[in-house]
C-alpha cells in the first residue's frame, strides 16, 4: 500500500486517489465492523424474537425474522408465573446490595488506613491484599462450603454473600484513589478537630466518588451474573439469584417451552443491559477498571 506511492514519482499522486482510498478503507472497515456487530447481536435479536413468537413458529425452525402471530404476552406471563422470575430478581437485588454495602464498609476504612496512616501491619495487609487479587473465589470455595455446612448456614442469603464481604480489589483500587488525596486537607481536618472516622467519610470519600461508583458497577455486574457460588450453597429455588434461577428454569423447560425460556432470559438480562445503555461511559469504565488499575 505504501511502497507503490513511494517508488512512483511523487508528482503523480493527487487529491482524488487519496480521497478515493479514504472512502474505500472506510467502507471496508464498516463492513468488517458491521459483520462483527451482527455476530454479537445475533443472540440478543434471536432471544427477543423468540420470546414473542408462537410455539408453532418456534418448532418450525423458521428463519423468517418477524413473528407472524404476536405471542409475547403468553411467554412473558409464563416466565413470570410458572417460574418465580421476579423472586429471582429480588434475590439478586438483595444479594448484590448486601455484598456491595459490606464491601464498601470494610474496604473504605482499610483503604484509607493503607493510603494515609502509619501503623504496624500495614505492609503485611497490603501484601495480603495484592496476593488476594490473584486468588479467585473458586479456590477457597471448598473450605468455605464446609464451614457454612458445619454451622448450618447453607441455603441462606448470608451464605451467598459472606465470601464477598471482603473485596481485596476494592481495597486496592480505593487505596490508589485515596493516595492522590492531598495530605494537607487531612491535616487541616485534624486541626479542625475531626476524628479519623469523620475524615474518612466526610472528607475523603466524597472526593473519591467516581472510583467508588466505578467499583460499585463492577461489583454489581460481577455478582448479579455470578453462577458458581450460588450454585454451590443454594439448592432452595426460593433463594436463587437470577443466573441460578435461570439455570433451574432451563433444566426444567428444555425442549418444551423455548418461548418462555427466552422471555425469562430477556427478563434476567434486561436490568443490567438497560442500565448499561443508560450509563454507557461509567459502565465501561467500571467494568474495565481491572484493566486500567
Amino acid at each position, binding site marked *: *500500500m*505504501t*511502497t507503490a*506511492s*513511494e*517508488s512512483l514519482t*511523487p*508528482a503523480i*499522486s*493527487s*487529491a482524488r486517489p*487519496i480521497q478515493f482510498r479514504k472512502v474505500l478503507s472506510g467502507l471496508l472497515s464498516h463492513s468488517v465492523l458491521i459483520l462483527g456487530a451482527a455476530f454479537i447481536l445475533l443472540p440478543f435479536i434471536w432471544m427477543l424474537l423468540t420470546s414473542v413468537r408462537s410455539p408453532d413458529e418456534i418448532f418450525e425452525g423458521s428463519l423468517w425474522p418477524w413473528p407472524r402471530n404476536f405471542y409475547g404476552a403468553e411467554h412473558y406471563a409464563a416466565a413470570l408465573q410458572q417460574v418465580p422470575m421476579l423472586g429471582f430478581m429480588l434475590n439478586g437485588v438483595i444479594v448484590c446490595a448486601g455484598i456491595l454495602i459490606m464491601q464498601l464498609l470494610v474496604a473504605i476504612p482499610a483503604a484509607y488506613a493503607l493510603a494515609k496512616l502509619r501503623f504496624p501491619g500495614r505492609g503485611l495487609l497490603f501484601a495480603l491484599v495484592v496476593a488476594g487479587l490473584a486468588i479467585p473465589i473458586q479456590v477457597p470455595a471448598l473450605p468455605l462450603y464446609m464451614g457454612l455446612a458445619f454451622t448450618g448456614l447453607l441455603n441462606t442469603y448470608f451464605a451467598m454473600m459472606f465470601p464477598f464481604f471482603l473485596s481485596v480489589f476494592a481495597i486496592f483500587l480505593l487505596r490508589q484513589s485515596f493516595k492522590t488525596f492531598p495530605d494537607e486537607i487531612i491535616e487541616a481536618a485534624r486541626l479542625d478537630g475531626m476524628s479519623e472516622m469523620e475524615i474518612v467519610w466526610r472528607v475523603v470519600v466524597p472526593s473519591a466518588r467516581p472510583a467508588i461508583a466505578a467499583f460499585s458497577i463492577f461489583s454489581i455486574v460481577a455478582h448479579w451474573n455470578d453462577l458458581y457460588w450460588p450454585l454451590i450453597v443454594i439448592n432452595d429455588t426460593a433463594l436463587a439469584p437470577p443466573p441460578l434461577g435461570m439455570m433451574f428454569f432451563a433444566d426444567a423447560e428444555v425442549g418444551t417451552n423455548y418461548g418462555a425460556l427466552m422471555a425469562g432470559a430477556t427478563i434476567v438480562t434486561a436490568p443490567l443491559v438497560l442500565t448499561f445503555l443508560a450509563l454507557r461511559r461509567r459502565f465501561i469504565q467500571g467494568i474495565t477498571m481491572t484493566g486500567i488499575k
Partner: protein
Amino acid sequence: MAGGISIANIEKAFGATRVLSGVSLDVREGEFLSLVGPSGCGKSTLLRIIAGLERQDAGNIAIAGKPMDHLLPRERNVAMVFQNYALYPHMTAGENIATPLVMSRLSLFERLPLLGHLSPRRNAIAAGVAKDVRRVAQQLHIEALLDRRPGQLSGGQRQRVALARAMVREPAAFLMDEPLSNLDAKLRVHMRDELSELHRRLGATFVYVTHDQVEAMTMSNRVALMDGGEVLQLGTPTELYARPRSLKVAEFIGSPTINTLPVTCDAGGGVHLAGMRLPIDMPLGLRVTKLALRPEAIKLSAGRSAPGQIRLSGRLRRIEHHGAERIGHLTLEIPEASSIQFRLQAEEVGGLEEGQAVDVRFHPKDVHLFDAAGMRVEAEPHRQAHREYA
C-alpha cells in the same frame, strides 16, 4: 535539494473556527525564518500545513518551485522537529534517527519483521543507514547515546536526537515547532546558540515556530509575526523592532513592552499629548491616536534637557533590578496615561528613591505613531522652530 518555500493565500478553518485567513509568505532558500505570535495565532497550523500533516482549505504550498499541495508528508522532503520531540519511545536513539532512512531506502517487504531479512540487499542497506546515523550523531555529539531509549535521556539529549532524526535525511527544509519550549531556561539559551550554529553550517531552510519573541529575534534572518490567522509583519528582527507596522507588532516585540500613550491630532496636523503640543507634525488628513516609545528611548532628565526633546514629569513608583540595568516604573502626571517603563543604567540609580518625583525626556525621532486602526503612521519633519515642553 535546497529550496525556498512559497506559501500563497493559505486558508484553514477547524469547523467554525477560522485559523488561517489568507496567509502568504515566501521563505527564501537557506534562510532561518521564524513564525512568532501568541498562542492560537495559527503559526503551528501553518507549519503543519507546510509539512503536509494538515490539509489547507484553500491556497498553495510550493517547495523549491514544485507544488506540494497533493503530496503526502513523506513525499515533501521536509523534516520536522516537534515540541515534545515525538521520539519513538520503544526504539533506541539510534533506531529513532535511522527511521527516515529505513523508510526511504527499504521497500515495504524489507521493512517487515523477520520476513524482511530474507531480502539479499537488506544487510548492505542497513550498514549504509548505520554509517549515516553515526555521521549525524557525531555532528551533534550524541554518539555515546545511540543505544539508549528516549526515556533514559535528558531533555537536551532528546532534543539533539530529534534534531539528528531531522538532519539524517538531508531535507530541503527543517520545520520546527517550538522545539525549545520544553527545556529549562539555561539550556534553552544554550540550544538557541547551537541551533543558529547548525543553521549556518547546514545552510538549509529553517522554518521555526515559537511564541517566544526573544527566540525569534535572536536566531532568525527574518521574522513573520502572526496574529489572528494573519501575518502582521514580515521582516528582519531589526525592522520589526525599529519600524513596527502596527501597534500589535510594536507591543509584541521587545521586553519590557513598549510604552503607549494616548495622543490627539488637531486640524493642522499637530500632535498633542495631554494638552501639550509635541514637536511632531502629521501629513494633513492623517490622524494618530497612539504614541509608542521603547523603554530605552526614555532618559532621566537631569537638569536642563537638550533642545528638541520632549519632557514628562512623574513619580518614580518602583525600580526593578535586572543585574546590569534597572527598569524604572514611572507614574505620569498626565491624567490619561498611567504608567511607563524606562531603562536606567546602574550608575544612574544612585540617589534615586522610590516615590520620588522625576523628569524624563525623549527625542521625537524615537516616537512611533499609530492611527485609530493601530497602523503605523509616519510623521513629517517638524515644520516649526524647536520649542521646549515641560
